[in-house]
């Protein structure tokens, strides 16, 4: 196999064997559903309903609150109970629409109607995707409609589908590729209609040979879509790394993938596009991996967005013993949870329960200057120097050392034999520089 990859990065224990053979199972919720208005990058969505309203499954309950924002659709039918701040995955309370599920799943008019995408204009396709509330489902949550509307649509020559799924434990994209390859391919064809000169490459790490084989067979003879096996290495699924691996083009923090002629979409997002455009089904469910050694039955579940993490965990067979740590997302870039009483949102790729927390077990010791962070950094940075600068609040040096290029992938921290929290310092440095820039801008205006 002709394997492609990016520079540096690290090899992780995959832990995918826990859930990779469990077929996707759909679970229906009951009771309260919670839809935070900020579950994407950009402005919060604006509610279109008020308490007491009756809503139907698939009905838009909030519209985009700006250019960079996203709509939200109800995943169930029922009554709007309230709109109030609720705890989210990020540990913050945010305004959320709360709907009491009536358990009937009465669909909105036209829901599920088949549509021929070839009869739709690019503009109509983009509108459908925006109204369906689709955002990048790999974790970033950037509006897919905005991403599919670059300034130079005719110059885009690569549509890249991210099937790398490089985070340990996660298997939801893998299961989708195995179980719904036709939907994935149709979703790609829909998006290719927006980019007349683009060719699509599906990048899949070589630890998923069955997915590579299945999609390659299905796409045999297709001149517009091909499968590219990638070397299994973290962070292969990082947008900049994936573009480099597949096209050899490099972008930095000041550029968009479109500047390099590329549009990158995740597997689950492409399938959501198919569902919205071809089946008139907005983004109301997603596939999550429930895994970790403190879960009774690791599995992949299709859940309704808005359901609580606790209900998903119960549907997966519950916890085994007392976990030390619960994560939303993968162990490299995911968020640690202190409760399961929070709603599943569009970007929730997984719930992981770990009986052993390596972070608590390995406190930081002095840096021995070994250079493993330098060898690990896919952005070619020197995390050791960045940490020194950030920890001393020396943000000028932090910027000079190209700290703003950090993608927060976590490789440096995971590679450090002194167990130093390098990524944490870089995040702090980046956030501080951004804050200072905002303040400088505000000062200039006044």
């Amino acid at each position: 196999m002709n394997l492609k990859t990016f520079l540096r990065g690290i090899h992780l224990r995959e832990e995918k064997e826990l859930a990779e053979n469990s077929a996707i199972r759909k679970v229906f919720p009951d009771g309260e559903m919670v839809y935070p208005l900020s579950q994407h990058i950009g402005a919060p969505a604006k509610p279109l309903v008020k308490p007491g309203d009756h809503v139907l499954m698939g009905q838009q309950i909030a519209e985009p609150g700006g250019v960079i924002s996203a709509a939200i659709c109800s995943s169930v039918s029922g009554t709007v109970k309230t709109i109030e701040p609720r705890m989210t995955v990020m540990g913050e309370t945010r305004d959320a629409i709360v709907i009491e599920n009536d358990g009937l799943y009465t669909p909105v008019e036209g829901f599920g109607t088949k549509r021929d995408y070839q009869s739709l204009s690019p503009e109509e396709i983009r509108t459908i995707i925006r109204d369906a509330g689709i955002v990048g489902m790999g974790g970033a949550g950037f509006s897919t409609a905005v991403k599919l509307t670059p300034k130079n649509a005719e110059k885009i020559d690569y549509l890249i589908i991210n099937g790398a799924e490089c985070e340990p434990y996660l298997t939801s994209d893998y299961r989708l590729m195995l179980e719904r390859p036709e939907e994935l391919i149709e979703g790609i064809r829909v998006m290719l209609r927006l980019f007349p000169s683009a060719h699509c490459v599906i990048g899949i790490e070589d630890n998923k040979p069955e997915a590579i084989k299945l999609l390659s067979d299905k796409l045999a003879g297709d001149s517009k879509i091909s499968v590219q096996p990638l070397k299994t290495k973290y962070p292969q699924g990082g947008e900049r790394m994936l573009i480099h691996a597949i096209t050899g083009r490099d972008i930095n923090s000041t550029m968009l993938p479109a500047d390099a002629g590329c549009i990158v979409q995740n597997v689950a997002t492409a399938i959501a596009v198919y569902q919205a455009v071809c089946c008139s089904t907005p983004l109301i469910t997603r596939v999550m991996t429930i895994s970790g050694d403190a879960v009774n039955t690791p599995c992949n579940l299709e859940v309704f967005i808005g359901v609580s993490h606790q209900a998903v965990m119960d549907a997966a067979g519950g916890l085994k013993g007392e976990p030390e740590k619960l994560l939303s997302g993968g162990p490299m870039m995911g968020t640690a949870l202190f409760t399961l009483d929070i709603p599943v949102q569009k970007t929730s790729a997984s719930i992981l329960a770990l009986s052993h927390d390596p972070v608590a077990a390995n406190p930081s010791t002095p840096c021995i200057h070994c250079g493993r962070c330098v060898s690990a950094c896919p952005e070619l940075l020197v995390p050791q120097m960045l940490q020194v600068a950030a920890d001393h609040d020396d943000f000028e040096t932090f910027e000079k050392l190209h700290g703003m290029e950090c993608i927060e992938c976590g490789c440096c921290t995971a590679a450090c034999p002194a167990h130093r929290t390098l990524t944490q310092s870089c995040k702090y440095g980046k956030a501080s520089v951004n804050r200072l820039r905002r303040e400088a801008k505000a000062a200039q205006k006044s």
Partner: protein
Amino acid sequence: MNSMLNVSVSPHLRSETGTSSIMRDVAIALLPVCFFGVYNNGYRALIIILICVAAAVLTEFVFEKLVHRPVTIGDFSAVVTGMILAINLPATVPFWMPALGSVFAILIVKQLFGGLGQNFMNPALAARCFLLISFTSQMTNFVYDGVAGATPLAALKAGENVDLLQMFLGTHGGCIGETSVLAILVGAGYLLVRRVISIRIPGLYILSTLVFAVILNLVTGAGMPSGTYLLGQLFGGGLLIGAFFMATDYVTSPITRSGQVIYALLLGFLTALFRVVGKSAEGVSYAIIISNIIVPLIERVTVPKAFGQKRAKKGGVKA
């Protein structure tokens, strides 16, 4: 769920390799040269090694207790410092001298500058140079098989012939751990296989020493050196042990890749300069500690460009 959950910033994974496992690997890699040193020099070598290690660990322990810092002798770094100092001493030194050297290495060079990771030069080598300057005659008293004599490197400098096979095996006079090329290569191979070190610094250091030795011989009018001379320079003295075990010391070598290249070339130049032009036959220790001091400067000018910055500047990626 009754207990409190742990929360922390991502990533939630940690390396299974720790500082102590790296230091333990270095100590294991030093065992072949230590064994050979004892075989070659007898029981005195064993006692010197034990004194060095014990004094280094004890100094670290006592100092950290006195200043109420966490005790870090479990990380094996003091053990490694003691071992490196020991293999850099002749087996004939009085027993108080290795103890003094270890105290100097750990107390003055390492702990007073902030402990692990903060020393500005290799503690063991700094201690060796301290002893060499203070007690020159005892530190250069090489006895082999009961006969005091010049090391092969000194013989080479004097224009005499050397036995290369003997130098490879190490059955001649010299510091405890520097004589056997074979034993050094076994240890170095272990470090390379375990990925504790990369070949970049030692490989370039050794290569550039030989290249600069040729250049300096030509410049000083000594003429093109013979193959025996160059192999003698390679096998003799502390070049190999220095390149694999001391120049690769994490704390005192650059962290940037291009910085490591500059550092290795500087080491090669200084070593060749001291050996060819200098009065003494040997120059590895001084070359390394001088280069150690320059490392912060090297790092400052070798910060690499980030991913995607080079081509972006040239405007190569315009869609």
